[in-house]
């Protein structure tokens, strides 16, 4: 009995000692991600991507990197709380996240105040970084995305009339729809119908029945995967045949799983496609990913979350410090980094300057159409 007790005592002492020394040797980053809720797929994919990136590059400044995940529940208030928790309780030195614009805007000011750098993988609304010194992103912004979508619709698809469906409760959707509308009308196209919804909506029959008699050539639905899937499905059921064009938010497996064969032909501007990957980092990442998930292809959210991790680590290396100010300064001077999603530089306002791809759903997969360079 005594032996067992002593054994247990030693075991726990070693454990505590190991844990303590382990903690002293690590660099702690925050994974500020929507693991549950309306956009859970983004958070879960991002986390899978970050885990692979951590396998590929586990250390920085000679210390092991640890990423603490805080769930934002795809909600603005929860996102702000999660940011406070990461900074105050977990004492992270930098944060990767959030995936969507509204949530990133909710937590941004908290990080700004604490001088903790934040790198968002995929929050594309311009306001996310505007006027903020500590908020960065590794993706393009919506004015560019809306512009390219409008050009693609007008020139390539020869669309003259477009209808819109806008989620009023998401900064991303409102912003992107506006940029598309401006660009499309400037090119000479016409917006024939503009309809609205909110994030929890599942029934779009009323909006679609309003759109139908206006006979648009395309419907622009800059929304997240699950509403785009339900919306497109209901469109086909109601006999609306117009092509659905969407934004980077569409690229989650759920779009195809929920949308079924009805989402065939849905095209969208996006950050990444396996077939468009050219950099060495991308090839390594895809190899590692396919080793871990044999039946899957990495999508934009896997790739950009990993990019955020790599860009952040590269900045920490250059800064040779874990101080917020130093990392911030290094992040702001990121030049021509060979990321998974292409060569990127951090430009004005902490926004990335980088290529964009256009994808289309074909045969139950995200097929690559073309790349547009900045």
């Amino acid at each position, binding site marked *: 009995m005594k032996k067992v007790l002593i054994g247990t005592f030693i075991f726990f002492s070693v454990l505590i000692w190991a844990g303590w020394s382990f903690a002293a040797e690590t660099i702690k980053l925050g994974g500020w991600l929507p693991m549950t809720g309306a956009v859970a*797929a983004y958070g879960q994919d991002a986390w899978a991507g970050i885990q692979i990136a951590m396998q590929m590059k586990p250390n920085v400044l000679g210390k092991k990197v640890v990423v603490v995940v805080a769930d934002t529940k795809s909600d603005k208030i929860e996102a702000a709380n999660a940011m406070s928790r990461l900074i105050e309780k977990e004492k992270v030195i930098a944060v990767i996240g959030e995936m969507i614009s509204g949530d990133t805007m909710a937590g941004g000011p908290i990080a700004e105040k604490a001088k903790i750098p934040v790198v968002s993988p995929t929050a594309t609304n311009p306001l996310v970084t505007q006027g903020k010194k500590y908020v960065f992103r590794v993706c393009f912004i919506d004015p560019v995305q809306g512009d390219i979508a409008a050009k693609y619709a007008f020139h390539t698809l020869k669309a003259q009339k477009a209808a819109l469906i806008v989620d009023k409760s998401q900064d991303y959707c409102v912003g992107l729809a506006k940029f598309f509308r401006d660009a499309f009308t400037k090119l000479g196209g016409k917006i024939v119908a503009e*309809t609205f*919804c909110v994030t929890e909506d599942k029934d779009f029959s009323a909006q679609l029945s309003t759109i139908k008699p206006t006979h648009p050539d395309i419907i622009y639905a800059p929304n997240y995967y*699950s509403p785009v899937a339900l919306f497109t499905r209901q469109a086909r059921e*109601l006999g609306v045949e117009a092509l659905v064009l969407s934004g980077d938010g569409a690229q989650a497996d759920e779009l195809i799983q929920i949308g079924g064969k009805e989402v065939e032909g849905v095209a969208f501007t996006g950050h990444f496609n396996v077939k468009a990957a050219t950099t060495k980092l991308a090839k390594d990442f895809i190899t590692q990913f396919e080793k871990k998930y044999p039946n899957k292809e990495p999508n934009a959210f896997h790739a950009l979350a990993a990019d955020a991790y790599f860009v952040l680590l590269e900045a920490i290396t250059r800064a040779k410090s874990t101080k917020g100010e130093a990392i911030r300064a290094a992040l702001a001077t990121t030049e021509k980094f060979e990321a998974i999603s292409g060569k990127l530089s951090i430009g004005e306002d902490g926004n990335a300057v980088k290529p964009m791809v256009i994808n289309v759903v074909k045969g139950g997969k995200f097929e690559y159409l073309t790349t547009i360079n900045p």
Partner: protein
Amino acid sequence: MTFQMFLQQLINGVSLGSLYGLIAIGYTMVYGILRLINFAHGDVLMVGCYFAFYAILIFSLPWYFSFLIAIFLTAVLGIVIDRGAYLPVRKAPRISALITAIGVSFLLENLVLVIFGGRPKAFYRPPLFGKVIEWGDLHFLTLSLWIPFITLVSILLLLLVIYRTRAGMAMRAISRDMETVRLMGVDLNRITSITFALGSALAAAGGILWALKFPQIDPYMGIIPGLKAFVAAVLGGIGNVIGAALGGFLLGLLEIMLVALMPGLGGYKDAFAFLILIGILLFRPVGIMGEKLPD
């Protein structure tokens, strides 16, 4: 708006409205008998959908069989919730039961979240419900005919149970005076169990139809139908089965027509539903069909 379009929107509205109605009758029945606002109703609905989803996926059962099993299992879940959560607070003030119901709601959501994960799952839609009927320029799914039909059948069955069986008689008696019913030698716990089993089975049926209409399930999918059903039940006069169905029907129709007539207000559909709730509570708290309560 052309007549064509009006008809199309009418079909959309009837389909959505009768679905709200079906979910609302389970809600209202539990309230009518036990005077308990079961805030977990929406989450019971969600669990029912997960049962159906996994019955099809894991046991590869034919859909009709798995739907029946899901309804049965959800009824059992209703009894378990009653025995586990509501029985201990049966004699406590009404507010305790209400808070317990909210607790059960969170428990179910998070339990499903932990077990099945937060990513939405695609729900299988059998061809019987998924065919598109084209009628001139009107398009609708066969499901849009099935929903009102199933709602109607459910109401008739429920009324049959309440007004034509001994258990139903006991239920009606409990809604008047629980203590006296106990003195008459009626097993209260048995009757409340039957009530919850029925209410949960209705929730499961409503949930499965919801998942067929919007073929996606996730742990939080029950919140909105639950709230809409609550509004529908209050609108119709809470406790009144036909009132709830009528309330749901009206709510669905109004929501669709709001978006149809004022597309600019489409983003405020839910706000509109709750505005109706506030209006009803202010001006006619007993609802459309409700009678004045004795207390």
